[in-house]
């Protein structure tokens, strides 16, 4: 937004039915726009109503419920910190779900972003068929959250599934990938990595913004492909990488559907992701108070990670200096 008042435009022009001109301060915004409070709130009212009824009040309500025992049948009873105490010191499954979730977030997100960036760089040219490749690589992202794909994945990694059949062609004995505690979570991580299409498209848009003169200058100075990647591509793309990192981490902390359908938390709780365990507690055994406490801890975890991301971003995210 430019705060420059253009000369020649009268400081205050009354317009509209109300005809209220804005007093022109020394550094006023372009002031022929009146402030329309009334109309503004009319326009944002659908969102504002939804925000209060379906977001803000529920968040505060779940904060209250987190300190109660509530099972829908009777009124909530205040139990203080009981839920949190039980969660942190008396619930082994809770810690297993934390472990599974963190392991998933810290493997699936980097894997997905690395593949996305690599493919974006490979596709950042004007060769023939590139748009076909781009569309095909995006296809898994488009359908990845669906139940159809979850069912498909379960059968691909099943005992008589596609993966074992392909391995058999090479004489390698297969395994029960989903039934074994060591491999089950990796089938879900692979499913996440397979859906690299959206971050790839975002990277691709970012790569197109990098001026080619930078690469030309680096080539003249004798920079090889690796040096150009480290000193030009990565810094110029860092804000896009940062954006992808934040958004992908947030959504990975909430992973639910695929784990429910493919592994249902098993075997031995190795894929009992946080959102899945929360669902089991709140809607399987209707422990709404406990579920609300878990939800608030998740909110705090995500807030902390987002804050850390933002805090460290100024160390490595490079923003082009804005021309004054």
């Amino acid at each position, binding site marked *: 937004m430019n705060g420059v008042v253009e000369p020649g435009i009268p400081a205050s022009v009354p317009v509209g039915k109300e005809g209220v001109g804005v007093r022109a301060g020394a550094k006023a915004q372009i002031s022929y726009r*009146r402030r329309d409070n009334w109309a503004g709130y009319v*326009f944002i009212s659908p969102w504002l109503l939804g925000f209060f009824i379906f977001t803000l009040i529920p968040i505060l309500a779940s904060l209250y419920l987190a300190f109660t025992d509530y099972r829908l049948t009777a009124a909530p009873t205040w139990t203080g910190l009981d839920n949190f105490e039980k969660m942190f010191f008396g619930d082994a499954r809770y810690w297993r779900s934390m472990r599974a979730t963190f392991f998933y977030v810290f493997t699936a997100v980097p894997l997905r972003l690395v593949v996305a960036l690599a493919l974006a760089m*490979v596709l950042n040219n004007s060769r023939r068929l590139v748009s076909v490749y781009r569309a*095909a690589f995006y296809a898994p992202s488009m359908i990845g*959250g669906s139940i159809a794909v979850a069912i498909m994945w379960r*059968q691909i990694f099943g005992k008589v599934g*596609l993966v074992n059949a*392909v391995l058999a062609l090479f004489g390698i004995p297969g395994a029960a990938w989903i039934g074994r505690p060591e491999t089950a979570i990796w089938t879900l991580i692979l499913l996440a990595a*397979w859906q690299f299409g959206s971050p790839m498209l975002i990277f691709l848009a970012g790569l197109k913004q990098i001026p080619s003169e930078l690469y030309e200058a680096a080539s003249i100075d004798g920079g090889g492909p690796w040096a150009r990647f480290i000193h030009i591509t990565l810094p110029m793309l860092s804000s896009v990488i940062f954006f992808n990192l934040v958004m992908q981490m947030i959504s990975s902390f909430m992973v639910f559907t695929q784990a429910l359908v493919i592994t249902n938390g098993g075997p031995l709780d190795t894929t009992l992701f946080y959102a899945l365990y*929360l669902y089991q507690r709140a809607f399987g055994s209707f422990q709404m108070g406990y579920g609300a406490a878990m939800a608030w801890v998740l909110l705090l975890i995500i807030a902390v990670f987002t804050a850390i991301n933002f805090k460290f971003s100024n160390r490595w995210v490079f923003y082009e200096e804005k021309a004054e």
Partner: protein
Amino acid sequence: MATSQPSFTTDSLTHQQKQRLRSAVYHLLVGGFCLLMIYPILWLFASSLKGPSEIWTNVTSLIPKEWAFENYIEGWEGFGGITFAVFFRNSFLYAGVATLASVLSSAFVAYGFARLRFAGRGFWFTCMILTLMLPHQVQIIPQYILFSKLDWVNTYLPLLVPRFGGQAFFIFLIMQFIRGIPRELDEAAEIDGCSRIGIFFRIILPLIQPALITAAIFSFYWTWEDFQAPLIYLSNPKLYTVSLALRASADPNSVTNWGAIFAMASLSLVPVFAIFIFFQRYLVQGISTTGLKG
């Protein structure tokens, strides 16, 4: 690759030949990886056409030995006397109404945020952006309590009513688009005595069509594959969406007719691919300009 060859061979190649070789290697590698990535999807469609005798014996092939189109007929029968016609109708209604409500409301709100200056605008806008990062888990429990008190469980109301408030992602997307429209258009209409509502409906709405289409595609996708909300609110099989029905019929311990399950799973992806083929341009633009997740 080139290192195993004596160096004079590459030197003796003309520039054009080198380019061609490079291009061939590129397409071989990228195209090969591409096939690997979409192989599971092709496999799903192929398996939906394989008979019970070959589905788990001729697993890797993408071409069935005998085309078992009856899988689709058997799958369509559904379960408990409810056919997939019901589930597809439910899903289309849910995705259709939700998309219409959400995109129109979002456009309305986006105009307010993008064009009108009012007290508290910055504050509410920040609140809206923050909701993008909010885990919905903190909302679902009180929402469930609210909707069950209203006796809305086992209806589509809990899934549809919140959509009328617009969705932060779409509001943001449409706002970005409105910002690209010259303000002079609004101002000219204003001078001609057009009200804010009039400006929105007569000037802005027709101009933001591409953004509306992008938002509508995403909204349709997300609603079509939505699973958690229907799972929580809908327990009557007559109300099941395709997602719920697929999951209910694909219990790994009891399924015998996998061909029929794969047939319905494939069918559930057809609307997604159809939209992609017709509106690819809008999708790619939407993702690249706002970083929407897909």
